[in-house]
């Protein structure tokens, strides 16, 4: 499929990287040097020009394109790109926006602005942060099959009850599948004998409750529902996160240094206590008892500031720190230094967009560990290779690096065991190593 990506910023670039092998990717950008750089660094066609102009779109081959992704930094430009593309073809269009209001307008009418799918970056990040905060100790959380199935990543701590246990012993949770273990940068698909070591990061897939139970057991500092939420920085992400918590009945606190911005967000956030202060002012943090918070989320502009704010919160004795990290290369480093969870906006957006480049039946997708592996949900079609027999036989046929994590039939969650037989129409959630991804996508 020909995919046209307009705007080669962080997001556009990482989408292009993800798609370069499987698709014919054309990238349009207004910056000469970026275009030149892309031509040599990725296996894509890079065109210099303005994506809102038909001439440029035609040069990129809009007639044969199956997908147009508009992900420049400007919301308006992205919307106009989609509208322009729609005037000459009926290719599927995706627009990335930052403003939530645009998304709300689009939601009200399906084909507003000629956009077929709209991704609101800041909202996505906010939702991810909320999901992660809802599950104690989790590093990443994603929902599948309309929320019936949950996928989560956890770090195994030396005090954790499952530490140093083989998987067949640790698997005492109903309907929970251990999909993968990341150890020292290596990915292992666990068998029953694989021993879970401290510092391992495990990926589990299962029902809502089982994942929650597992998380609660793993969490060293007790698994009560986190009530005291503190968000540092009223950036757009910080603001959206506060809204997300509000809409689920929480009353978060939001610290913002700039008086004008603080007043601005305080006007729209009715259930959030907005505090106007420097988040590194120890006296202030002490007076407001920030140390008693269950979770501190740093959403300041700038990765370094977020690191500082998180470390400070850590030092005060906050249980969990979550930070928004723009630069992917920092994420690992920051997690080693002491941030519990680093959330990357770029990755969240790419996840959402890449899903549309897959065959029609991929319903949902999550990337793990910087796209080393993916968890995908799809509806099983009549001619799928998964229908060949019980799961045990099917997985033997498939290449290594595939784990069937969960199964949903008629809105019910079914724990996949070796003897389970998959039926057409089932929703399957699979964990797939990125190395064998294309092969698997073919098979299913």
């Amino acid at each position: 499929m020909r995919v046209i990506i307009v705007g080669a910023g962080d997001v556009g670039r990482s989408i292009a990287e993800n798609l370069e092998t499987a698709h014919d990717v054309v990238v349009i950008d207004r910056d000469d040097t970026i275009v030149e750089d892309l031509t040599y660094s990725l296996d894509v066609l890079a065109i210099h020009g303005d994506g809102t102009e038909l001439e440029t779109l035609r040069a990129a081959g809009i007639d044969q394109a199956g997908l147009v992704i508009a992900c420049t930094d400007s919301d308006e430009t992205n919307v106009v790109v989609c509208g322009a593309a729609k005037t000459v073809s009926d290719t599927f269009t995706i627009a990335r926006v930052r403003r939530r209001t645009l998304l709300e307008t689009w939601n009200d009418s399906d084909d507003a602005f000629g956009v077929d799918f709209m991704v609101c970056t800041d909202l996505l990040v906010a939702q991810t942060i909320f999901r992660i905060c809802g599950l104690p100790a989790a590093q990443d959380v994603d929902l599948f099959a309309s929320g019936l199935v949950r996928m989560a990543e956890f770090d195994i701590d030396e005090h954790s009850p499952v530490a140093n246990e083989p998987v067949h012993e640790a698997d005492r949770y109903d309907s929970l599948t251990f999909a993968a273990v990341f150890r020292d940068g290596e990915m292992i698909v666990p068998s029953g004998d694989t021993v879970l070591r401290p510092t391992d990061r495990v990926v589990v897939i299962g029902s809502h409750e089982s994942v929650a139970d597992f998380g609660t057991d793993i969490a060293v500092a007790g698994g009560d529902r986190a009530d005291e939420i503190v968000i540092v920085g009223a950036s757009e992400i910080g603001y959206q996160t506060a809204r997300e918590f509000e809409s689920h009945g929480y009353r978060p606190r939001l610290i913002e240094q700039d008086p004008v911005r603080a007043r601005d967000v305080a006007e729209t956030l009715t259930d959030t206590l907005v505090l106007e202060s420097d988040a590194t002012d120890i006296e202030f943090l002490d007076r407001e008892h920030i140390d008693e918070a269950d979770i501190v989320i740093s959403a300041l502009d700038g990765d370094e500031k977020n690191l500082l704010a998180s470390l400070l919160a850590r030092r005060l004795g906050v249980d969990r720190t979550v930070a928004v990290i723009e630069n992917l290369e920092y994420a690992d480093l920051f997690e080693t230094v002491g941030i519990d969870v680093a959330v990357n906006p770029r990755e969240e957006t790419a996840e959402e967009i890449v899903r549309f480049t897959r065959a029609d039946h991929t319903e949902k997708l999550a990337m793990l560990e910087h796209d080393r592996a993916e968890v995908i949900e799809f509806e099983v079609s009549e001619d799928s290779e998964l229908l060949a027999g019980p799961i045990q036989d099917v997985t033997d046929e498939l290449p290594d690096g595939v784990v069937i994590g969960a199964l949903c039939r008629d809105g019910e969650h079914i724990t996949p065991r070796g003897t389970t037989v998959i039926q057409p129409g089932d929703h399957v959630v699979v964990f797939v190593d990125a190395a064998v991804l294309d092969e698997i996508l073919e098979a299913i």
Partner: protein
Amino acid sequence: MRWTLHVDWRAGLSLVGTILAFVSLAFTVPIVVALLYGGDDLWVFVVSMLLTAGFGLGLRQLDPDPDPGAREAFFIVAMAWLLVAVFGAVPYVLAGNGTVSQPVNALFESMSGFTTTGATVMGDISFDTHSRAMLMWRQLTQWIGGMGIIVLAVAILSQLAVGGAQLMEAETPGPGVSKLTPHIAETARVLWIAYVGLTALFIALLYALHLLGYAPNMDLYNAFAHGFTTLPTGGFSPEARSIEAFSPAVQWLVVPFMFVAGVNFVLWWHVISGDPWRLVRDNEFRLYLGAVSGLTIVGTAMLFLSALETPATGQIGGNLERSARYAAFQIASLTNSTGYANMDFDAWSGPAKGLLLFAMFIGGSTGSTGGGIKVLRWLVILKTLRRELFTSVHPEAVRPVRMNGRALDEEAIRGIYAFTLLYIVIFFVGVGLFAADAARVGFEVELLDVISASIATLGNIGPGLGTVTGPMGGYLEFPTSSKLLMILYMWIGRLEIFPVLVLLTKAYWQS
């Protein structure tokens, strides 16, 4: 030293003239009444009409093509109200009947009418002394003043279309005129339609009660007369005993309409156009409803437990219907500044009168016809006080004050505090001045009378709580100097102080 005025007073006066000429049309109502009831004072109203129209048209000659700016708005509004009151007093003087034939008394009665105060200096309110046309004119002044002379003028005179918003805002400053429609004239018309509609409904219901036999003396004349003074929260009545003269059924009917008159008419417009939830959800309406119901319950309990009994009302203590009726009526009447009475509440106990005095300080809602400090201001003050308590514990907290979910501008809040403080200061100054003036001429008056004289004129309420100023009394016995001061108080009270006070500053006229 050269004095240059930076106010285009010619253009301002020219517009005032237009408004005055327009208001002169109102004299047609007493003319019709005089024709219907055969009074011999037809000439009084014809002459008044000609005088008013002539003077108005004369003022227009000052500037044939006026183009007033934002600054002239205060001048126009203040002058329009003053001159309308002056010319509204002309018939009283011309007719020469009773105490109001004396010019200061006439001006008092007229200002009290247009500002919907309802304080009276008529010695004898009856058809023996005054004609039916004259007493109807007195009622009509309140109806015209209720929704506002300027609002009416903006609704009808196309000349005011552009600067209309500023004029309307100067007439009812509050926290801003809400434009319901793109054209300000349309907004003004909408308000007047709601006003006229509710008045017509009330008159129809009153007359229906009469036709059904529940209100023998509520004839067509009285139905119109009381329709003209209920919706504008006026309080005048052609009956000396106010609403006490009518049956309990009428008294019960008046209560909800007095309440309605104290609600923002913008909300009534929404109700009429099929969106009653706007009313139910409105913060100010809820507080107003809560305050009136709460005070009514307390008042009912006070009367029920008392041993109150007067010749006119019979036994009130121990009688639930009477206690509720008299309490609900007086609370509804005094909270939003109507000033009707269905009994002489001077007979109430001290604590019960204290309750009424408290009610007088509440006022109606913004955008209603009621006067006073207004519910919205109290609501904002309560909310900011709560915020102060909160921020004394959390000094860094940013907490906007919300009204109907929308955050209020801090500057608007400051304005509300300034107004309320100024209002209370002017009230106390009034108490001092009225007391001193009474002492100067040796007029024996209680403290309660002086207090009520100040709040009842400034708040456009009308009757006070003392023996002199009480609902069955009047302001006739006050010295002339006090009456002039009261006229000023009613005037600034109706325009919410600032538009008049600003005219007294040097900055307004010069730089």
